[in-house]
């Protein structure tokens, strides 16, 4: 994976994180869906997810930046998983509105799991971590 492609994918990740937070604020302000403490902690997790991509955009791709994403996603997934388990009993209506059949904390858990998988996939592309060098084309002699 080239540095250019890694930069583009990190920029896309930043847009995705921003979209999630904008959606959360829309449901809070426009629809009156007030967040609980665990919901706020999941927003903290999403904001923390953005630090890795920002570092990659400004300082170039490094494995440590993807490590930051994995750490933030693990913490966020733990919090979202805790809230999901609080409402997993049969008959429990859950907390707040549901989107496409799932509550926001369930979607948050899915998003954090996707972030972990995406970071692992990005770590596989090792070419982005190599310092840019001007390759010498092999000639006849």
């Amino acid at each position, binding site marked *: 994976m080239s540095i250019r492609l890694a930069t583009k994918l990190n920029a896309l990740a930043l847009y995705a994180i921003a979209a999630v937070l904008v959606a959360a604020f829309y449901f809070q302000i426009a629809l009156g869906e007030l967040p609980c403490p665990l919901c*706020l902690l999941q927003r903290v997790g999403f904001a*923390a997810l953005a630090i890795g991509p920002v570092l990659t955009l400004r300082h170039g791709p490094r494995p440590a930046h993807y490590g930051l994403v994995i750490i933030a996603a693990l913490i966020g997934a733990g919090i979202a998983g805790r809230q999901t388990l609080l409402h997993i009993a049969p008959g429990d209506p859950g907390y707040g509105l549901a989107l496409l059949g799932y509550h926001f904390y369930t979607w948050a858990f899915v998003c954090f799991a996707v972030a972990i998988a995406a970071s692992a996939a990005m770590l596989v592309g090792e070419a982005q971590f190599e310092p840019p060098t001007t390759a010498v084309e092999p000639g006849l002699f």
Partner: protein
Amino acid sequence: MDFLVVFLVLAASLWVAWTGVARIALLLFASAMVLTVALYLHHATETLPLSL
């Protein structure tokens, strides 16, 4: 108030990551994560009004 502190530390971390030294951004990120876990543990001991 405690959530405000965490969000402010995260905002500072994002700002430093964009404009400044990566190592300081890492320190701010680590402190924000420690605060987040502390907040989680604090609220995990609360009695939650479950709907059952």
